[in-house]
Structures are given as structure tokens and as C-alpha cells.
């Protein structure tokens, strides 16, 4: 059985049960979630279809997707998070970077800190703070904003509540001046003029490189706004196709999205400090590059080879 819930002590200890309960809600919903959802005021439990839409098709709840330079599950980002589990004496689960797992770990460490005494308690508290800063705050806020944008219902309210709870913890723990390691080492967006179109597309879909999250829904919306035909496939395929149809408009559309997100990130700077600044700067740089690339494309190049558009050297 889980360790008993820690009582809040003068507002200093983490709201352990709240965080655990919020962690559970990032899991596929089922009848078992009724009691948790009711306690969180999120009842009724969302249905499986909504869960699939948000978490399986748009916003995968894995830290490595948002922190890794590949923009995919796994890789060095997941290994680093797995290493953290080991460093705090836990056996890393098979998906150590799942949001639910990370929140569960945070709650567990916080409970240890609240229940223990002396050095073990201090150690647990320090570990919880490190987890929050390095492996949660480094991506969660960006992620949760997008969840709220996608769903105005239970998951939107869940995201807002989780954001509030984590923000509260950030304020309690204090904001470190140094960037989390994931962000410190992350390469930026690949300029197609230097690295080629393929690398450019990959990096645009890697949030930590682009500074913003490009969901399937974003691409659908972009196609709809530009009245472009949409070919079904994974995001990279869709994006490549859209760029082939109307590169200038698509690049500008993406630049607008990045710009808007840069502004959003910047608004969180007061609470999140260097992390918000990092994401804002990345997104702004992306917006600038996309705009510049878009400007260089003639107004309409129907049927143009998208790779030739985005690979065309501009400085020689």
C-alpha cells in the first residue's frame, strides 16, 4: 500500500494526494477513476475517445517527446529521467518519463520529505525539488497550456489544476537560476539552408528545438485556414505535404503560431524564470526563421518540390 498521505504542514509540504490524484487522471480513464475524478471535481470521468484524442493523437504525455532533440519518446531524455529515478533509489519503470509516473514520483518524494526527519527528509525534499525543476517544469507548463487549448472540458480543467499545483510548488521551492540540463544541452532549430530540409522538418517537430508544440490539430487548422488539401499521415508527412502545396503561406502560418507561443511563454516568466525565457526565446527564433524563409519563397509556387523550397540556399 502506498505510504499514508502527508499532512500539509503550514503550507510548506506538497499537496501529495492532490498531485497523486492528478497523476492518475493522465492515465486512460475507466470506472476506477470515478472516485478520483469526483474528489478533484472533474467528474464525470472523460470517455476513452476524448482521452485518445488528447493523449494518443495530439499531446503524448511523455517528457522525452518535449525534451529530446528527436521530439520522440525515448532517447537520451528518457535515459536521463530514468537515471534520476535510479539516483533517488527507485527502480525506473519502463516509461520513466510518463507524466503520471513523474508526478507519482514527485508525490512519493514529497511524502517522504514530509513524513521523515533529519537528513533523509532533507534529502527527499531536495530530490523532489530537483525533479520538479529538471524533469517537470522543464516541459510541463508548455505542455499543459496546449492541453487547455485543445480541450475546454475535463482535461482542460485538469491541465489548469495541475499547472496551478506545479506553479505553487515552484513558488514554494524557489526558481533556480540555471536551466534544466535537458534544455541547456538542446540544439536549436535546424536551418534548412545549412542542414537541409529533412533536418529542418525533424527539428520543427521537436518542441525543445522549435520552442513550441506543433500538434496534429495545428496542422489540420493550418490546412483549413489556408484552404489546402490535407493528406492523412503522421505529422511529418502532413507538414511536408503542406509545404509542398503552399510553402510561403505555410511557413508564415507556422511562424505566427510560434510567435504566439513565444508571447505565451514570456508571460510565464515571472513564475517560471529561466525556463519560460528559454521556451520564449526558442519560439521567437523559430518564428523569425520561419518568417524569413517564407519571405524568400515566391507568393505562389503551386506544385513546387517542397524540399527545393526549403533547401534553397539563400546566402550564396
Amino acid at each position, binding site marked *: *500500500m*502506498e505510504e499514508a*498521505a502527508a499532512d*500539509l504542514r503550514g*503550507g510548506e509540504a506538497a*499537496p*501529495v*494526494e*492532490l498531485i*497523486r*490524484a492528478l*497523476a*492518475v487522471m493522465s*492515465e*486512460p480513464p*475507466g*470506472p*476506477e*477513476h470515478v*472516485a*478520483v475524478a*469526483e*474528489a*478533484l*471535481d472533474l467528474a464525470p470521468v472523460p470517455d476513452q475517445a476524448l482521452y485518445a484524442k488528447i493523449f494518443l493523437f495530439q499531446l503524448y504525455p511523455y517528457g522525452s517527446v518535449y525534451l529530446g532533440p528527436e521530439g520522440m519518446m525515448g532517447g537520451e531524455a528518457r535515459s536521463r529521467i530514468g537515471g534520476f529515478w*535510479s539516483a533517488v533509489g527507485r*527502480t*525506473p*519503470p519502463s*516509461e520513466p518519463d*510518463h507524466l*503520471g*509516473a513523474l508526478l*507519482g514520483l514527485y*508525490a512519493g518524494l514529497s511524502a517522504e520529505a514530509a513524513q521523515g526527519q533529519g537528513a533523509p527528509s532533507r534529502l527527499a525534499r531536495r530530490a523532489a525539488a530537483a525533479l520538479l525543476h529538471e524533469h517537470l517544469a522543464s516541459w510541463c507548463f508548455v505542455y499543459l497550456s496546449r492541453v487547455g487549448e485543445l480541450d475546454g472540458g475535463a482535461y482542460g480543467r485538469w491541465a489548469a*489544476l495541475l499547472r*496551478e*499545483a506545479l506553479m*505553487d510548488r515552484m513558488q514554494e521551492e524557489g526558481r533556480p537560476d540555471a536551466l534544466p540540463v535537458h534544455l541547456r544541452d538542446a540544439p536549436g532549430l535546424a536551418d534548412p539552408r545549412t542542414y537541409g530540409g529533412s533536418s529542418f522538418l525533424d527539428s520543427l517537430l521537436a518542441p525543445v528545438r522549435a520552442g513550441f508544440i506543433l500538434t496534429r490539430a495545428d496542422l489540420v487548422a493550418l490546412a483549413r485556414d489556408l484552404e489546402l488539401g490535407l493528406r492523412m499521415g503522421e505529422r511529418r508527412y502532413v507538414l511536408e505535404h503542406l509545404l509542398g502545396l503552399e510553402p510561403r503561406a505555410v511557413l508564415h502560418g507556422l511562424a505566427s503560431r510560434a510567435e504566439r507561443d513565444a508571447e505565451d511563454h514570456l508571460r510565464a516568466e515571472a513564475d517560471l524564470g529561466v525556463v519560460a525565457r528559454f521556451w520564449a526565446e526558442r519560439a521567437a527564433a523559430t518564428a523569425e526563421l520561419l518568417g524569413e524563409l517564407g519571405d524568400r519563397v515566391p507568393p505562389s509556387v503551386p506544385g513546387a518540390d517542397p524540399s527545393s523550397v526549403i533547401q534553397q540556399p539563400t546566402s550564396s
Partner: protein
Amino acid sequence: MNLNELNRRVSAARSEVEGRGETFYPGSSRIHLAAFPPKERWNDWVELDSRAWPRRVEKRYMLVPTTCFNCESACGLLAYVDRESLEVRKFEGNPEHPGSRGRNCGKGPATLNQVTDPDRILYPLRRAGARGEGRWERVTWDEALDDIADRIRKAIEENRHNEVMYHVGRPGEDGYTTRMLAAWGVDGHNSHTNVCSSGSRAGHHWWMGMDRPSPDHANAKVILLVSSHLETGHYFNPHAQRIMEGKENGAKLVVLDTRLSNTATHADHWLAPYPGSEPAIFLAVASWMIREGRYNREFVRRWWNWQEYMEVAKGSSSASFEDFEVVLRQAYEEYTFEFASAESGIDARTLRDVAEVIAGAGTRLATYNWRSAGSGNLGGWQVARTMIFLCALQGALATEGGTFPNSWNKFVPRPPRLPHQHPKQWSEVEWPKEYPLALMEMSFLMPHLMRDQGGHVDVYFTRVYNPVWTNPDGFSWVEMLTDERQVGLHAALTPTWNETAYFADYVLPMGHSSERHDLTSYEQYDGQWIGFRQPVLRAARERLGEEITDTRQVNPGEVWEENEFWIELTWRVDPDGSLGIREFFESVKRPGEKMTVDEFYGWIFENSVPGLPEAAAAEGLSPLEYMRRYGAFEVAKKVGQVYEDPVPDSELEDVHVDSAGRVYTRAPAPPSPKAPGGTKIDPDAEGRRRVGVRIDGEILRGWPTPSGRLEFWSRTLHDWGWPELAVPTYVKSHIHPQNLDRDQMPLITTFRVPVQIHTRSANAKWLDEIAHTNPLWIHPTDAARLQIRSTGDLVRVETDTGYFVAKAWITEGIRPGVAACSHHMGRWRPEGQEGQRMGMSTVRLDREGSEWGVRVQTGGRPFASADPDTLRMWWTDLGVHQNLTHGVHPDPVSGMHCWHQAVRVRPAEPGDRHGDVSVDTARSFAVYRKWLEKTRPADRHSPDGTRRPWWMLRPVRPERAAYTLPTSATTAS
């Protein structure tokens, strides 16, 4: 609502939900990192019927926990009982089980195959012709019970207690049957342990007074295995999952295995030594650690019995610890890496590297020897003794990440109506005077000892045990079992046909793991748990409001369970209570009435399991209801270094401390909820009981050894005729190169194949499909030398007593110069007999005097049955029964059968068929005689005129007087 208020609200909701015994955080959540049906829905669990796909058809189940019975791990199972048909549809893991934690190996789910096996035995049978003739008639349970009970009663009334014997394979339970035998007053407990784990047990026992290890793999820095634990072995599933956890946490895995087993493939350091040289390697590591000062001096000083060693063995009663260190260094200086390299064939530099790894573990060294070298070699018990030597040098005993003794991680609760009497007679067939230090009964010598002693057993039970197939020299067993002068009545208690049951008078069908009650507890991590095996259909029907009074009401056919069987049999042995036996099987609440299984376990759970009544009450359940619902309970976790526990003042009364620091008290032992057991330490001359040892002025619990300390030097071995083996040392195996002829090579037989389990699993179709044969592993260089051209070629493997014909598997996965063949295959049924068609070849047994032959008539093939899958059987090769060709090799000290064989391998002869066996039991008897010469019998070496050291473990302990050797037998005491 602010965050704090919301947090409190969630907390309150959790308390309320969990207070109802329900799950708040769902099992499928990553909060628990597992996916299991939440326990509050076990009564009505809904799943989609996979066979109905793509239609969505809901199936409703009751999930009822039980315990797997396919090996000794006792992993938790959840039976999915169909609510409509009340049939078990599948078995999965029980997440509430602390040992297995919801995980199972393939053998757990395959229980379903065993339950639905079309060849299983459903009714009691009695032989209709001569024993072994193969003619059977169905009888009622009453007929069988009355016949057997009459014989037992007569034997007891005529003071022939020793003519009643119960021979058990895997017990799969703790204490029920030994309690029964104690109640009967018979020294008739005969186990299979001396063909299994006695070697390892002996090595542990003479260090710690406890006979098995319980390594804390998950927290270890270095895991050292002489076993193939990641695929087979004792406690395979509970240990394997923790070994992998340890590896994920950075532990280094060192594996000694002559074969490239699945386990070896996961090792950071795999050593493939010449078989039997493992102790030489460990001694070289120990010697280097001693020379380099890489050991825990303080631990050694405090806890080893070095003073006793220096005083008795070295004649220096005033020696200092520093003096001992000098002696220790000298004693082991011959064991260099070069010496170990010459013995093992492994490069000295590699050994040095591994030594560095082991020494770096400190107190986080987890070691395990299961079978393997410990059960293969003459002196194999030194494998465990030298492994624990490494732990003892580092203080890695009962520490986090270290190696625990089993008893501290095991909980056997005290049963009701515990018999107070002990058997008055000593069973010389089970505990012969030639093997006074044997860890367990010399069971595999039974035919030979019966012949030597002119013995007679009037009622012989084999219980889930198959000595004809499992033991070496199986045809000597057949000869004994078919001789009614030696065995008066043989009752085989078995769920399924086996080679021994063919030679029984009664075959009595007993339930599989979901059809019987048992209570288990095994050492699998630093904690203590109990697991409850139960007939799941009985529990399911009771949930629906039915009253079940006899497990036969819910089991298939007339399959019974042993618990109820033994109660019933005992009442028929002593119907009026005049023998003083029946009282132990009478109801506690209603004396004079039969005790029921519900009452037996209900009493234990209410009175002998700390914490269980409270946990049950918190859910509004009785303790029995709680165990029926969850199937397991964790009694304690993080038991830690019991030997360092201070003895409380309440136990110290009129204390006497002897010159060796052993502390005795007049205070009675506090009542314990555990069943009595373990070693027996004599009181002091004035009758005080030993309560601990004084270490640096503190009175601590210490170890259950005669000295109260870790016994680096064993006075027992020293005084009982083996002074040269009293400290950890190296004994050259019987298959050491110097003991082989030029054309011989060692044959390793002691390994299992993954998913199969000895004789138990031949009726599990899923397992049989995966593993059904046992080829001879042979290295390409040997194959070339022996003119074996390709894998699949037939070869003759010649032992001391005969030969068997196997298929070669040419592989670099075996050390050159060594052959290997798993002893897990080669099941057979004589022509005309019933049997497991899925896993048994049909054979013709030929006999001419002492010469026996097995000739395979048909291997596997499809057949029609109630199960359509049997028509899909595609495999024909069912392996070879090699154990028939093994002579008995009892280690003269531990009593362990030394399984490895010295063999000659050559291409098969024209006419040889795969699976053929030829044996001469006269030659087998000569082998027995030859090994008997190695012994140092009690009548010549006992220091006190007894048959066996009183302190040593014994499953059923006769009264003290029975330990005394007959005066005529004592010549040298």
C-alpha cells in the same frame, strides 16, 4: 477551493474508499506501475471475450486468488472464474502477493492446462493385477481410505511405526504434513532434498545454522550466482524479477555456469569453469581479499567463531584476533588465482578482475547457489560454504543488498493442536548411520538401504513425487516397488500419471494448485509473507452463498485435496482416539468432532499471524475471509540483521555467560506465533536456555549455531570425523580430470529447461510445445573428435551402469571437454498403461535379471481427446530418460547425490533409437557400495554415541533418546 482544501478533500476521499477495502488509486495507474484489476472489482470483473472479436461480448468473472504449485516459488495466481459456467477460464498473477508481485513465469498460467488436461486422473484407482502390470480398477475413496488406514493402525499398534513412510517431492506447503507425521508418531518423513538442494543447504547450514540463502538481489551491488536463476531455479520468478531490478539499479551480475544459460547471457561476468572447480575460484577470491586486507575486519572479529578455532584447531586459547588473521592468511595462501586457473581453466587475470568486482560489493553482495555445481559434485556443498565465506568476509549477511539466511525471511505460523510428542523410533532407512551429517533424508538410497538392511515398509506414500523417474538408478526403484516383501502397500498421491504411480497399489488423485489448500512462506526478499493456496471453485461458490464442506464437491471427478484426505485418513487410523492421534485432528471449538480445513486455517490466521487480524478487521473481514479474498499477507518487511538485535532485559534472568561468550538465561522463551523449528541448542549444565552471545560487552541474539556465531570452523565437522573439512575448503570432484579415464568426459545433468519443472509439468500443453526434448550439448571440437557430424545425430552416452541414446546438439554454448543434458525430459509410459500422451513416449520395458532396457515404441503424436489442441500436436521428440543410467553418488558428508557423471560419448550403433536406455542394476549396486566406502559412519566417528548431532536441522525430530546409537553399534565413541 484552494489547493490545500482540495488536497484535504482528495485525502479524505482516499481514506474513505480505502477504508471500505477498495482501491482509490487504480491498479492500472503508473502510480502503482502495474496493470491489474482493482481488488474491489474482483467479485465481478468484466472483460471482452477475445474469441468473440470483432463483436464486443462481455465476460464476467470472479477473480479468486490461489498459489501456484508448479515449483517451490509459490507465486500468487488469480483464477478467472466464469460467473456463468463457474469454470476457471485463465490464471494470471496476483498483485497482492508480496513475493511474486503479480508476475508469473509460463508455468503459472499453464495451470489451466493441468486443470483441463484430458489425461489427468479423476478417480481413485486400485491395481487389479500384479504391481506394475498396468491393470486398474476404480474404487471409492472409502475403500481406499479403509484399506490404507487399517494397515497404518496395525503398524502403529504393533510398534512398527517405521514401516509407515511419506515420500514427498516439492512440499508446496509449510508444516501441515510434518505436523501430521508427528501426530502419528512416525519418523517417516522422506523428502527428495538429497537429489535437489542438500549440497547447498549443507554449505549454508554449517556457517549459519540455517540452510538456505535469501539474497536481497534488488538492493545488491554485486549478484553472484552459481545457478541459472533468470530462467529456472528455486524461487526463479520472485528472484529473477529482483535480479533484474538490481541490474537496473547498477548491480553487476556474476554468473558461474559451464553452460551458456539464459542467465549467463545476462551476466556482466560469465565464468564457465570446469565443473566442480567453483570452490577453488571462490577460495582464490577469498585468499586474495585476505592477503590484500579487502575484508571487513570488524565484522570478522565480532561474528566469526575464530576464538574457538584458534583454541581447538590451533591449540592457542589466548590467541588475539591479529594472531587469527595471520593463521587465516596462511591457511588460504595456497589458493592463488593461478591455482584456481589451473583447476577451472579460466584465465587468472579474469579471476582477478572478478575478485575485484566481488570485493567492491562490500556489504551488498547477494549470493545464491541452487543445484548446479552444489548438487553435481563430490564435495559440492563446499560451493555454498565458500560462497558464504565471501559474504562473511565482507559482512554481507542480512544487510541491505546482502545475503540473508532463509529463516529470517520466512514465516511459518503455529498451527492449532500442535503435537507434543516426537517419534520414538529412528528410521534407519532414511537416516542411516553411515551419513550422520546428511542434511536431509538419504531418500535416493532407499532401494539400496532396504536391500542392505532387509527393510520393509508396510505403507509407502509417494506424494507429488516420482522417484522412478527423478532419482538416479530408477530401475532399482522399480525392483523395490514391485517386491511386496519390501513395500507392503504403495499409495501414489498424484494429480497425474507418473512413472512411479505405475508401480503403486492405489493411485489417488489430488488437486492441482487451484484445487487444494496449503499454506506457504518462502524466503524471497528481506521480508516475511504467507501465501494461501485454495480451491478456487470452492471459494467462488461460497462467495455465491453455497456451503461447501468437502473439496471433492467442486473438483473435477473425485479429485480431492490432501488436507482433507489426511484428516479423514487420520480419523480412520484412530477412530476412537485410543492411539492418541485423533485429538490433533479434532475441532478446537468442538472437541470430539473432526477439524475442518476452514477451522484449521481460520485458527492460524486468527492466532498466529501478527497483523493479519487487524488488516482483516479494517476491511470488515475475518482473517480467513481476508486470506480467501487476497491470497497472501506480508507479515514483516525489512527484517534486517537479527543477529545484532540486543536481547531485551525481560529475557535475561539469572544469566550465565560461558567462556565462549554464549549467554544462557532462566527466563522462559517468550511465546512465539511461529511454528517451532530450526536448530536445537542444548541448555547449559544447569538447564538455562541459550538466549544469545556476548559481543563487546553487549548481549546480542547471535546465530543459531552451537557457538552462537558464524562458524568459519565447524566443531561438528571436526568432531564427527571430518576435521580436514572443518573450514571452507576445496574437495576435488569425482569428475575431476584426475578421476577420469582418458576417454571419459564429465556430463552435467542438473539443469532445467525454462518453463518445465521436473515431473510436474508434462501435462501442460503450452509448456510442452515450448520445451519437450533434452539434446546432448556438445562443443564443436568435441563433436569433431568424437566423429559426431551434425546436430541431431544420435549418440550413445555410456555411464558406469549403462547407456542412453540422445540426439547431439553441437554448440559453442558449452565448455569444450564437457557434455550436458537436462534431466527434465524423457518421460515415458509402459505400453498398455495410461499416461500423459502430450509429454510421454510409449516404451517397452525389457528385463533379464538385473539388466533392464527401455525401447521407445512411439514418441509424441497428435491424438483425439476432449481438447481439440491435442490434434494439433506437432512434436514427436520427447527426449531421453537419462537418470536411469546414473548410479547413486551420495556425498559422504552432506548426503547430497552428486549428479555429474563421468561418461563416454560416441556415435550411436546401428539399431539404436533415440530414447533407448540400457542399465544393469547389479552394476548400480556396485556403484552404491563403492561410494559407501567413502563414508565415516556414526558408529565409528560419533563423538557422543549418538546417530547425529542433536543441534542439526531435521524435518521431523524423534525424541532425544532415539538419537542414541544402539550400544552394540558404538565402537569408537
